[in-house]
């Protein structure tokens, strides 16, 4: 699943249109949109709301090693030479309240990479002492949630320069256009991230795990038995055994007594040896 987080509706709407996402009417706590591959949440501004939103998504929809978390949002730049609408990827995030540094494992290429300084307040003074020259209000929250639930290569922080840390108010249509113009870049970043996540996948034990769970239920294997069994199945698969067939041979077994359970367990271990 591709999880996309934005703080504002104005950041989200070009993505919702571009990816043809539909509103999840069952979710009241946040605005959530989705299709088969993508789920987008609009969390509200600030790192706390952002971390809450992401944790909510992961709690509701689940999260695994194949998922990707993208934060798409505006950032301010103290460098007037950087054109508005420039897309930046974060290779480091600094929480300016705590000084804590976060590092996504960024393997996406073709885009400028920067340190993003995350503030709790809107920064309108360009002389503010920032670590780097790009500021936002969510990236530290994204990384805090990411460190909790994901591997660091599963998170990409996409920032689009929207202002020069001044008081000037921007037109909503103009702000939308900044994201709109970067939609194909966002698609490319998602595609690259998918490839990277695939490369990181280890031995796929999903089928074996599902069968094992059924055998466990039928045989009432204890946790200790399962802790012994799972590595044996993995080892057998590495050795090249047809582990699915071996396990399927035990699907009809039922536990009628402790003795029977032990007998089946030993037989299973023997087949995997």
């Amino acid at each position, binding site marked *: 699943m591709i999880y996309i987080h934005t703080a504002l509706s104005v950041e989200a709407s070009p993505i919702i249109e571009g990816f043809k996402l539909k509103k999840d009417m069952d979710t009241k706590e946040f605005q959530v949109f989705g299709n088969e591959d993508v789920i987008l949440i609009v969390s509200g501004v600030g790192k706390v709301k952002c971390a809450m939103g992401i944790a909510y998504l992961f709690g509701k929809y689940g999260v695994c090693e194949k998922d990707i978390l993208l934060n798409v949002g505006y950032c301010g730049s103290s460098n007037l030479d950087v054109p508005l609408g420039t897309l930046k990827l974060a290779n480091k995030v600094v929480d300016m309240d705590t000084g804590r540094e976060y*590092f996504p*494992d960024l*393997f996406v*290429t073709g885009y400028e990479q920067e340190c993003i300084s995350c503030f709790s307040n809107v920064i309108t003074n360009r002389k503010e002492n920032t670590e780097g020259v790009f500021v936002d209000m969510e990236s530290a929250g994204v990384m805090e949630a990411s460190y909790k639930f994901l591997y660091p*290569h599963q998170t990409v922080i996409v920032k689009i320069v929207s202002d020069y840390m001044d008081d000037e108010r921007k037109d909503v249509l103009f702000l939308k256009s900044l994201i709109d113009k970067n939609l194909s870049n966002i698609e490319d970043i998602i595609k690259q991230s998918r490839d990277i996540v695939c490369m*990181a996948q*280890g031995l796929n034990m999903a089928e074996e795990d599902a069968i094992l769970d059924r055998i466990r239920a039928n045989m009432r294997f204890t946790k200790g038995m399962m802790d012994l069994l799972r590595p044996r199945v993995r080892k057998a698969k590495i050795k090249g055994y047809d582990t699915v067939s071996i396990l399927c041979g035990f699907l009809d077994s039922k536990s009628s007594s402790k003795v029977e359970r032990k007998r089946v367990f030993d037989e299973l271990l023997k087949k995997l040896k």
Partner: protein
Amino acid sequence: MSCLKNLSSRAVHRIYVEEDAFGYDITRKVLKKYSDCDIVKINNYKDVFNRTRQSFSLQKKFPQLILAVKKDTFIYEGSPMCQNFGHQSYYYATFMVNCIFDCQYCFLQGMYNSSNIVCFVNVEDFAKEFSRMECGSMIALSYETDLIAHHNIVPYLEYIYEYIKATENVAFEIRTKSANTLILSKYMPLDNLILAYTLTPQKIIDSYERFTPNLDARIKAVNHALDLGFKVRICFDPIFADEDYEEFFQHVFEKIDGKRINDIGYGFFRMPKEQYLKAFKISDSIVYAKDCVEEDGVVTFPEKMITEATKIHMDIIEYFVDKEKIYIL
């Protein structure tokens, strides 16, 4: 700021640099060499290296460098699972952590959360400790890495050679699988410097030692080092008790004159249980599906297999190399 156009596997594409590391010569050289890399300033290398959930295998495919300043401890006491080669005490120094090679049986597989390569830039601080070591001890300089293999990234030998030369009463071992013969020509052999080459059958190299040079290239490197007058140690370590080695030993000693070798290290695959279990979780390698046993917290082959294999192997090795020169663990 940087804009990486192509992320080619095995090429360094990002360098994390500790604030304190910028003032060191090694840092300047590395940053000059990799000027097109993405440079990320960090406070402490542990903030990057010790993150709890990292993809070891992905980082192996796309290694990133971390330049840091080592603090507190520079020399560590060697593990009892390593050979001391007759020295009264055995230590190791970690100039680098992790390796560009990907040997699936290596203890580094389960040692750290990250496979990114940490390079400590304050070589002088390590060197100061050399002179404090007791007479007759040995320091392994290539312990959690392969210094010679990394020479093109960070030329540590350039920085430590003079210190090794000045510390005559301590033996230094640089262990490698590299076939880089060019760098040795720049240095004079030293009585207290031993180059230790790990040799394994080509079948093992193909199966378990990703990105390492082939056997014949390593043998060529051994002979080159011997021709230059260096003391050379050959390490048959790790041995897999379930594999055939007879032909391999014959081949090695057909190509290398056993009498010119300083000594031989010989040891079977072994790993602390905790590291073995950690490596087993992340690795799909057949190494971790072998029928090993655990004894006193160490995972290795059953004693019977080891005894039988050792006998067969020693019959061959002792034919070419004096028995006193062979150190068995």
